[in-house]
Structure formats: structure tokens, C-alpha cells
């Protein structure tokens, strides 16, 4: 079952950078889909289009469709705020807000006007367990979030995107600033999260792409070169450009 279907999607920034051309991509539900390739290929742009975060950027034109459960989210009538609650996002650098650990998590509820204390309390624990952070912070939820280590902060951001029970999680190089152990923890929790969520990951290295991908899509200079099942694409790519990138000849 495909959660997100991208049909002939093109986007162009007004300064001409990182545009995407005629992208066709099926993102299956309950799988981890990896978008990889050299910098400037448009991976982040595609990611930010799925939750319409590009609305505020200087976009010159968009064409095509992005279907989320069959609904075109590029449609002007789509409720963007609601969409973003269904599509969580984690960024390359952990952005913790200057509050306590707990309030960082519950802030989304606060903004949405949810006041059910029991629901909130349960959600805090669930999201922290899911992001493999619960054991480390359960006794100090009221401490400032900024006191956490970088890896913990990134898992807190993951928890924050999970707390409102989105259907899709977008991750833009979530482990680029983390040490190998924290990276492993994040990757492991992503594997567990697949059961309940659809995950789209832009990895920060080919190795991470190969380790984590169920489906992999290779982007080069705004074009989607090749899509395939992760294990196959990384061992036996059909395109020579993909092959050479995976072998580390460029990028």
C-alpha cells in the first residue's frame, strides 16, 4: 500500500537552486524510504514539500501532485496546519525549544489547544519510549531540554514529532551531528517505528542509506535517477550513475 504517491512533481526556486524535475515516486506505508544522493540534489526540497514547509520559501513554481492517502496536498484548499500534524519532521540540527523536556514535548498540544492531562501524560511517556529516550530522562522531565546531550536532544526532537501521533515522519539528516552510538540508537528506534509509521529519511551518508533502507531513491541534480528495494539497489544498481555514487567515485 502506498502512503504517499508523488506524480510528475516539479518545483523551482526563484534563485534557480535545488529545483526538482518530473519526480515520480511511490512511498509505501510502514516502510522506511530513503532519499539519497549528493548535496544539492533536491532531497530536502522534496521532503519539505511533503509537509508543505516550502510554502514560506521562495518557490517560483510547482507542478504535479503529491497524493497523501489519495488527496493532493499541494491543493490550495488543504489545511496545512492539519497536514503538518499528520506529517512529523525532524531536522538535521536538533532544535530544542528553551523549555523543560516535558514542555518541549507537550508544546504541540499546547498550540493545538489540547488540554486532556491524562492523554498528554501518556503521550509524553509513549513518545519518549518510542524514541528510546525514556530510560534516560524519565526522572528529570522538568529539567531544561538544553541540558541534554546532542544525541538526546535529537531523540527528544524525534519524540516531539511523534507525540501528536503523525502518520508519516520525515527526517532530514537526523544523525549528521551525532556520534556513532547515538546514531545507532536513532536508527534502531526508526526500525521499531516502522510498525506504526511511514518513514521518509534523508540519510547523511551512503552507508546509513544502505543500513536502513527498505526502499531507496537516488537523486542527482534535481532528478530521480533510480528507485528500488534497498537491498537490491545497493548491491546491484541498474544505473551506472547510481553505481558510481555508491562506490564513492563522486559526491
Amino acid at each position, binding site marked *: 500500500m502506498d502512503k504517499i504517491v508523488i506524480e510528475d512533481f516539479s518545483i523551482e526556486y526563484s534563485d534557480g537552486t535545488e529545483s526538482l524535475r518530473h519526480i515520480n515516486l511511490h512511498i509505501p506505508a510502514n516502510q522506511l524510504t530513503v532519499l539519497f544522493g549528493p548535496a544539492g540534489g533536491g532531497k530536502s526540497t522534496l521532503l519539505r514539500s511533503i509537509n508543505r*514547509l516550502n510554502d514560506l520559501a521562495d518557490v517560483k513554481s510547482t507542478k504535479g501532485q503529491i497524493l497523501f492517502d489519495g488527496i493532493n496536498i499541494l491543493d490550495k484548499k488543504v489545511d496545512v496546519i492539519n497536514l*503538518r500534524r499528520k506529517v512529523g*519532521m525532524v531536522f538535521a540540527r536538533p*532544535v530544542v*525549544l528553551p523549555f523543560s523536556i516535558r514542555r518541549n514535548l507537550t*508544546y504541540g498540544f499546547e498550540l493545538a489547544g489540547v488540554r486532556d492531562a491524562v492523554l498528554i501524560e501518556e503521550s509524553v511517556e509513549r513518545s519518549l519510549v518510542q524514541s528510546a529516550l525514556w530510560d534516560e530522562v524519565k526522572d528529570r522531565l522538568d529539567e531544561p531540554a538544553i541540558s541534554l546531550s546532542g544525541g538526546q536532544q535529537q531523540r527528544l*526532537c524525534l519524540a516531539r514529532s511523534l507525540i501528536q501521533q503523525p502518520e508519516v515522519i520525515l527526517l532530514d539528516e537526523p544523525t549528521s551531528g551525532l556520534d556513532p552510538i547515538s546514531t545507532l540508537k536513532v536508527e534502531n528506534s526508526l526500525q521499531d517505528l516502522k510498525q506504526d509509521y511511514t518513514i521518509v529519511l534523508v540519510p547523511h551518508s551512503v552507508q546509513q542509506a544502505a543500513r536502513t533502507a527498505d526502499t531507496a531513491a537516488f537523486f542527482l541534480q534535481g532528478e530521480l535517477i533510480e528507485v528500488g528495494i534497498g537491498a537490491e539497489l545497493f548491491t546491484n544498481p541498474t544505473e551506472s550513475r547510481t553505481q558510481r555514487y555508491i562506490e564513492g567515485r563522486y559526491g
Partner: protein
Amino acid sequence: MDTPFIPGPQQRKAQAIFSQAIEILITAVVKAMGYSAIVFVIMIFYFLMSEGIAAVGEVPLSVLFSARWYPIEGYYGILPLIGGSLLVTVGATLFAVPIGLATAIYISEIAPRWMREVLKPIIEILAGLPSVVLGFIGIIALAPQLRVLLDLPTGLTALAGSILLGLIAIPTIVSVAEDALDSVPRSYRDAALAIGATRWQTIMRVTLPAARSGVLTGVMLGVGRAIGETMTVMMVTGNAPVMVRSLSAILMPTRTMTATIAAEMGEVAKGSVHYHVLFLIGVILFLISLIVNIIASAMVFRVKKRAERILS
């Protein structure tokens, strides 16, 4: 081959001494310039004090702090002037801060890029407008309108002064606050939007608090400009040193400390009591702006310290 490509030991030593001397000289010059700012402030204060302090001896305090300013007959009550300054400044602040902040937020957060490129230079031009011109506009355009609109005996009131001073403060507030908002990292906005905040919630709860210290600095600088402004208020406030006793004073003529000094300094006999009192008003003005600045930097400092505490 008189000058070898690689300097000999003698030459290297000379070069080292020379560059060291330059280093010391430049450090000394920069240091002197840094200190000169402090020296100038102290000298200005000393000059004001040396002329103004005499007034305290010449005029009894009960007269000085009375409600009547009529120097020709020996009434040197400065309270109406302080009141006038405060009234006009508070009015200007109430007028300028909401408009200034809203403009800054619009330019930095909402306006499309081409709009931003049009608005910013215009605001900066507004900042460079001579205050005499504003005062002129006030007399010709604003005051008659106010008189008709509010059915007053004269339009030259504290309100007119407040509005024009507000116009003077707005560009400062806008450009400093806009810079502060602009320097908030984009990642903050992204993070807020990604967890489902509306644009308004993002601005009010994330961007604005993150830029707080810069925004506050902008407001304080704007208010500081308003307090010290002379020409405009002298032209449009009607210049009647009336005691401020109620809120309705905003609709009556008033006179500020700055306008008093500017209007009377030219005609006063040097060394007279009146002359000394005018300097005393200068001292008070100086102290007020000092206090405003200290409060501003203390607020900025406190905010910064709190942020550092959280970050450490």
C-alpha cells in the same frame, strides 16, 4: 643582489621590532579612542553640572519643585516641564511601539521579498527625515486636523507632539527590531511549523521571544530618541508650561524640558539665575536618558544571562 630574498638575521630582528612597535601603537590608539567616549560623557556631565548646580543654591527647592514656570517673575517650577516631557514621551511610546513592532514583524516575517526590498529603504529614509520637516508637517497638516476632529481650541497639543515623536521613534524601532527578528535562525521557525504551529503562533511564541533582547533594544533606542527630540515638540506642542494633572492634559498644550531649553537659552543673560536653572534642566534630562539607557541595557543583559544559564 643587495636585497636577499630570505632576510638575514639582522634584518629579521629589525622587522620584528618594527612590527612590535606598530602593534603597541595601534593598541594604544584604539584604547584611547575607546576611553575617549567615556571621557566625553564625563566632560559633558561636568559642564552641565558646573553651570546647573548653582541653581540649587540660588532658587529654594520649594520653588524649583513647584508647579509654576514663569522665569521673568522668578517662578522656576520645573515640574510642569518634567511632566510635559513624560506625557509626550509616554504618548509617543504608546503610539510608536505597537506600530513599530507590527511593521517589523510584517517586514521580517510576512512580507514577500520584493515588498521587503521596497519597505526597508523607505523606513530608513523616514529615519533620516529632519525633525524640523516633521514639525512643519505637524503645524500645517496634523494640528489643524486634530483641532477639527477633536473639537479643541487649538490643535497644538501634547497629542500632536506625541504622534510626531512617535513617527520619529518608529523607524528606529522598526529597523533594530527587524534586524533582531531576521537573525532568529530559520530552524526555529521550521521546528515550530513542523509541529503544527500556525504562522501567527510561530511569530508570537517562538520568533518574537527569541528576538526579545534585540526588539527591546530597538524600543529603548526609539524611546530615547523621542525623549531627546527638541525641534518637533517645540513646534507642535503649543509651548505652554501647564502642570500635568490628569489624562486630559494630552489634549492641551504642554511644554517639554528640551523645548524650554531651546526656546529660552538664546535670550537669557549668561550667569543669571534663569541661565543656571536651564542648565539644571539639562542635567535632569541627561540623568533621565542615562536611566533609560541603564534600564535598557540591564533588561538586555538579564535576558542574555537567563539564556546563557539555560544554554550552559
